Every structure is written in structure tokens, then in C-alpha cells.
């Protein structure tokens, strides 16, 4: 894997360029431009022209793209149209929150899905299994904002166990505040993971090497931890990598419900506000982030699965 790392990194570049172009074109296909979004009902042709000229959005798209790429090479993503500060600053402020949120969500999803998938797999087709699958099916079919509001209503407002939205001040309080949104996101993801994980575990449990381990006379829990868990984790990781995009997409909703100033909400706001520089910047950062996650899952997979080191 480590030998292939530089290759993987190189491979990302065309992806980023492609994403850059698609985003550039897509956002400019939206009706209205940053000036129109800024001015709203106060827009007059003169004001629009003045502001677009100020912001440089009156030039041909390809010129804008080249300028964007040129600035990008200096680490400059431009200035946010609506917030009027550098996009790098906007992202720097919002990204960590989302990162923590997503990481916590991933952990929650694993904590939920992994043991429960095991329990379900070990009780295949018995009541426990059916009940667990039923619960996760509900999790899978319930809109994420609804789960979020229920969490807020019960665990937050009613029981006062958790703060009702926001991100608090400081690290400890930050984690405390992000608990519910991360859990909400995690539930959604765990429902996706659980389904395939269960069948993976069932498959692994049936594998000959598990039988062989039993034939060695080692204890059942050692069989589970030493053989089944590790092999199931590989599939989980793959699956997790595939669902990072979904997870990030759901942050849009969760951040809205829980008043978390993260990057998902920012992106949608920026799309609606025609804040071209922010959309471009955030997309790029997301692409880098997701690619890194892919890379990390790849590395973790090859660490777990020596066959991949071929």
C-alpha cells in the first residue's frame, strides 16, 4: 500500500481538476449571480453590473477558472461574497466542527453497528436478529432531521441530558454539544452499515478459518475477537469509505437542525447565496477530505488485510 501511495495521490489530481471544472460550470448555470443574490429585491441593472465588476464575475468563465487555479496555487481561495472575508478563513472556522462531527458520527456508527451486527449475526433469523434488523430498518427509513428533532426534544429539552443545539465554548463543551448531532448522523450511517455488516459477519462466521480456529480448541471469544472481528472490520471499512459522501451530505441537514456552524450547511448556503468562491473552496476542501478518507480507509484496510500489500 505504501508503495502505491504516491500513485494514489497523483491519481487524485485529475479528480480534483474535474471536480473544479464541474463545480465551476454547475454553479454558474444557476440562475442569478453573486450580485443578484446579494442585492435581492434591491437589484437594479446598474448595481448588479457594478458589484459583479467589483467581484470580477463579469469575465469569461474560463478566465475566472484560470485565475482561481492561479490563486489556488498560492493557497488563496478568494473572498466570500456574502461574508466578505477570505474563503480560507471561512472554511478554517467551519471545517473543524464538521470534521469532529463526522469523526464522532463515524465512531458512533461503528459502536452501534459493529456489536449489534454481531449480535444479529450470532442470532441469525431468531427474534433478536429480526428485532434488531427491524429497528435499523426504522433508522434507515426515518428522515435524518426527524431523528435529530426527536433527540433534541427528548434528550435535550425534556431530559436536559444534552444541550439543545449549538457548539458551546471550549473543547469539552464542544464535544458535549456535538454529541447529539453526531449521534443523529451516526444512527443514519449505522443503519446503512449494519445491514451489510450483518451479512458479512454471517459469512465470516461460516468461513473455514473460523471453523479451523475452533478446531484448535481456542475459546469462543478469542475466535470472535481474533478472527471474526478483524475480517469483518475490513468490509466495514470499505463500506464506510463508500458512505462518507452520504455522511457529509447529511451534515447539511444535521447542522441546520442542531445549529452547528459547519461546512455542510455553509456549502448549501453558499449555493443558494451564489457565493461562487465559497462553493468552489468548500467543494475542493470536501473533495480533498473525502479523498483523504478514502486513502485512510485504504491504508487501514491494507493494514488489516495483508493480502492487499501484494
Amino acid at each position, binding site marked *: 500500500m505504501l508503495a502505491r501511495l504516491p500513485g494514489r495521490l497523483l491519481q487524485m489530481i485529475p479528480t480534483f481538476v474535474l471536480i473544479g471544472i464541474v463545480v465551476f460550470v454547475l454553479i454558474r448555470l444557476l*440562475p442569478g449571480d453573486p450580485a*443578484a443574490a446579494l*442585492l*435581492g*429585491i434591491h437589484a437594479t441593472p446598474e448595481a448588479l453590473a457594478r458589484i459583479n465588476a467589483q467581484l470580477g464575475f463579469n469575465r469569461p468563465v474560463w478566465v475566472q477558472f484560470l485565475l482561481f487555479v492561479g490563486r489556488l496555487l498560492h493557497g488563496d481561495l478568494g473572498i466570500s461574497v456574502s461574508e466578505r472575508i477570505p474563503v480560507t478563513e471561512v472554511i478554517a*472556522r467551519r471545517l473543524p466542527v464538521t470534521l469532529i462531527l463526522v469523526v464522532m458520527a463515524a465512531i458512533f456508527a461503528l459502536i452501534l453497528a459493529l456489536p449489534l451486527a454481531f449480535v444479529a449475526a450470532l442470532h441469525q433469523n431468531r427474534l433478536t436478529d429480526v428485532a434488531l434488523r427491524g429497528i435499523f430498518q426504522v433508522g434507515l427509513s426515518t428522515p435524518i432531521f426527524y431523528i435529530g428533532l426527536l433527540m433534541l426534544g427528548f434528550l435535550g429539552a425534556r431530559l436536559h441530558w444534552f444541550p439543545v*443545539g449549538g457548539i458551546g465554548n471550549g473543547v469539552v463543551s464542544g464535544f458535549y454539544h456535538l454529541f447529539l448531532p453526531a449521534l443523529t448522523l451516526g444512527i443514519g450511517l449505522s443503519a446503512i452499515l449494519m445491514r451489510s455488516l450483518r451479512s458479512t459477519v454471517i459469512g465470516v462466521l461460516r468461513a473455514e478459518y473460523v471453523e479451523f480456529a475452533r478446531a484448535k480448541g481456542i475459546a469462543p471469544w478469542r475466535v470472535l475477537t481474533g478472527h471474526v472481528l478483524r475480517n469483518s472490520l475490513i468490509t466495514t471499512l470499505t463500506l464506510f469509505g463508500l458512505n462518507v459522501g452520504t455522511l457529509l451530505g447529511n451534515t447539511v441537514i444535521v447542522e441546520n437542525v442542531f445549529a452547528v456552524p459547519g461546512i455542510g450547511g455553509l456549502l448549501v448556503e453558499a449555493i443558494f447565496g451564489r457565493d461562487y468562491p465559497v462553493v468552489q473552496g468548500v467543494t475542493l476542501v470536501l473533495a480533498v477530505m473525502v479523498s483523504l478518507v478514502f486513502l485512510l480507509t485504504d491504508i487501514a484496510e491494507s493494514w488489516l488485510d495483508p493480502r492487499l500489500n501484494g
Partner: protein
Amino acid sequence: DPVMGGTLRFARNTDSEILDPVLNNANADIWILTNLYSTLILPAPDGKGLLPGLATAWSASADGKSYTLKLRQGTKFADGSPVTVDDVIWSLNRARNPNIGIWNFLLASIANVSAPDDNTILITLKNPDPSIPAALATFNSAIMPHKLFEAAKGATDTEKANNFALHPIGDGPFVLSSWERGSKMVLKRNPYYFGTDKAGRHLPYLDEVDLTIVPDDATRILQLQAGQIDATEFIPYVRVKELQADPNLTVDLFPSTQVTYLQLSVFPKLADGTPNPLSNTKVRQALNYAISKEAIIKVVTHDLGTPMHSFFSSTTPLYYGGDGPAYPFNMAKAKALLKEAGYDKGFELTALAQAGKANDTATLTLVQQMWSALGVKLKIQQMDETTLDNHRNASNFQVLSAYWTNDIADPNEMTDYSAYYPNIKSAYSGWNNPTVNKLFEQSQTELDPAKRAAEYKQIQQIYVAEAPEFFMYETPFAVATRKNVVGFQQSPLGNDIFDMAYFEK
């Protein structure tokens, strides 16, 4: 008695974008700005009158072509530096500069601002303008520290403004202490603020206001109920009754200038070239009659709204509501009018609404149902705000759900926008009434209040009779606070007024 001190935690649904009085354009900016900057004249909290601000007195010359204002002595910016006539002149000149921002039209009649002495400001006008005192009480005329602004980084006014607005120093009751974009804004008491209460105590009472951003209505209310915040605005009407019943909460319904209505295009032809049935006055009247405002007020505003009598709100100066609600529900009349107009077979209309605004879609859903009795088929299409504005500003729409809040305590802004053709074709509707146009132009220079009132009465009557919009309702601002919060006010223009707020012991 008011208690000094304390931190008020207030949740808003969206964050401000720029805290510059001139360059802003979003309500989320405007409604917070008055806490940071003072104007020469202050609007009364009820929106009806004007109070002394940085100027203690003002008077117009006999010909109405100049105003003289006396500056208050010893006022300071939040950093302790004095407010000088230079700051005033520079600020007003910046505010009326046609190349900066979009609010300069409010001060368009000013020809020159000067200072005969260190305590006096003389404003000369191109023509008499009765709305100047109100304009000077509007956020964009705020007085800013010239030197500090110039010291801000950047080459152009825009760049300087962007940087200055990150750490604005103003002369309002509060000063920005920290700002985490999209999440939280902390306002600290400005110790140099000139304002006092009736008992002579220095305002504001509060030490601090924490403004947090919570986009989701339901979450904001949950936070309030959980005691995580002390107050919040934009309570959905459906929740008002329920929250009023909560022993821990108070729900205030502040009179507002907010009106909700459906904007129309009355051009003879639509953007796609097909004939426009709404260009026919009778059709518009018929459709207006066919809308049961009572039902909408009941279902959508849960009886918090009131029917419109005019095209602007009853809280606006020079409002005329004497003829009663516009177009009370009358299906028979509606049918008759439509028949007269030759449209008794019905037709199709498309209404645009902003995506995610539950009330707009609810209203349109009701209208859709009501009109179906006339054979008028209404299609509803939601879109994001910018796309909607794009349709509006290109006059590319038939019906469009809209609401309005005044920014200035004068009817001229709304009239200019909605009823006066030469500027923006009466809000891009294409409604062009020469009488109204002439009356409005006269009223803009009319110094006699009675005559101006008469002109406005006529404008409103013509407008209602011609029905270039579908009248819906006006609504108060619903703000919920914890029981111990007293004195918070929202002006009819929407400004959040924190300087009189305090915690009851």
C-alpha cells in the same frame, strides 16, 4: 425597577453578513445595526415618531430646502474618541454616495452637508423633502468614526468597510466584542453610550447580549424551553398559542410594518409572449374577492394576522385604512367580475414561492383551493431566493408570494417600490398609473403634512381599487422570551432593541 447587568442570550435564525450601515442589504444586518451605531435622529420604538439621537434638536428652513441639526455634547464612540462634526459630515456623505451600497436613494435629495460650527450640522437639499428626518433616523445614516474607518486595511471604500465591519466601533448602545461567523456574536455594553432612561440611568441595562444562530425554528424554541437561551425571534405562528401557555415564557407580539401579499405581473403580455389575464383589472379584483383572507389568517397565522386595508401596514405613517379591509371575501362578486372580464371559463396561473417557507406554500395552497371554485388553476412552484428574485427582477412571473417590511418610518419607501412605475415598474409588476405616479412625485416634496396625507390617501385608494396585488395580511413580530426578561423590543421596522432590556429579579 430595571436591574443593571446580566447577559441576554438571544437566538436568531440567520447570521449577519456585514456590519456596515451603508453596504449591507440583508435584514439580518439591518436589524442588529442600530445596536452598534447611532443615528442623528432615533426612531421611536413604536415606529410612529422620532426622538433625539446624536442630535438633540433639528429644524427645517421655511422653504423646506435645508435642515439644521444641533449635535449632542460630549458623545463618544465605543473606543472613547469623541464624535465630531467631521464624522457626521463624512458619514452622511458616504451614506448618500450613489456608488456605495443600495440605500443612498433615501438621502438622494441632499445637496450638501456642512458644519457651520462644531455643534451644528447644516443639510441643504436639492428640493424640499419631508422624509429627511425619517431618513436621518434610518440605519444607513448612522454616524461612524471617520478616522478609524480610514485607518482600516484596504484601498477602496469597500475593502475598508469589509475590514472595519469585522471589528466595528460605533456609537450605539453596544459594541461588538466577538463574532464567530455562523454561530455566535457577542455584544458588550458600550460605556460611552449617551442614552439614558427616564430615571436618568445610563443605558443599556445589560452587560452583554449573546446572539446565537439557530436556523431551525423548532430547535430555537426547544432551546428557549430548555432555558439555554433567554429570547428568540421568528416564532412560527403555529407555536404562539402553545408557548403563551408555557408558564416560563412570554410571547410578545410587536406591531410591525410587515405585510404579506402576492405580487403580480400586470403586463399585457407575459415574458413568454402569451396574453396575461391579470392585466385585466376586473380579473385581479375577482381573484382578490375570491380569496378568503379570514381563512388564510386563521389557518396560516393562527389568527395573529389582520387583513390589509392598504398596500402597506397600518403601522406605517400616513396609512389610510378607512375603507375597510381590501377585498373582503365575496365569491359571488368574484364570479360576476370574472364573467364580465370574459374569463368565466377560468385559466391557469403559476405562483412562485421561496422554497422552505412553510407559510408561503400554505397560503398559496389555500389560495389554490379557493380559486379552483372560479376555475382558476394555480400551480405552485418553489425555488430558492435568488432564483425567485431573478424571476421578479426580470418581470418573469405571474404571481409571486412576497412580504415587505419598511426600513424607514415613512410610506415613501414602500410606495416607491410598489406603486411608482418610473423607478422599477412598480416592483416589476408593470402596473403604471399616471395619477399615482404624479401624486407620489408631489408627495415627495410636499412639506404640508395634511396635504401629504391626502396625497397618500388617494394613492392608497387607487392602489386598492386597481388591485395590482393580491392582498393578504399584516402580522406582528412574534418574539418569545423567558418570563424574567423585560423590556426587549422589536421596532415595527424590525430592529431588535436591546438597550432597554433587563432581567427581572
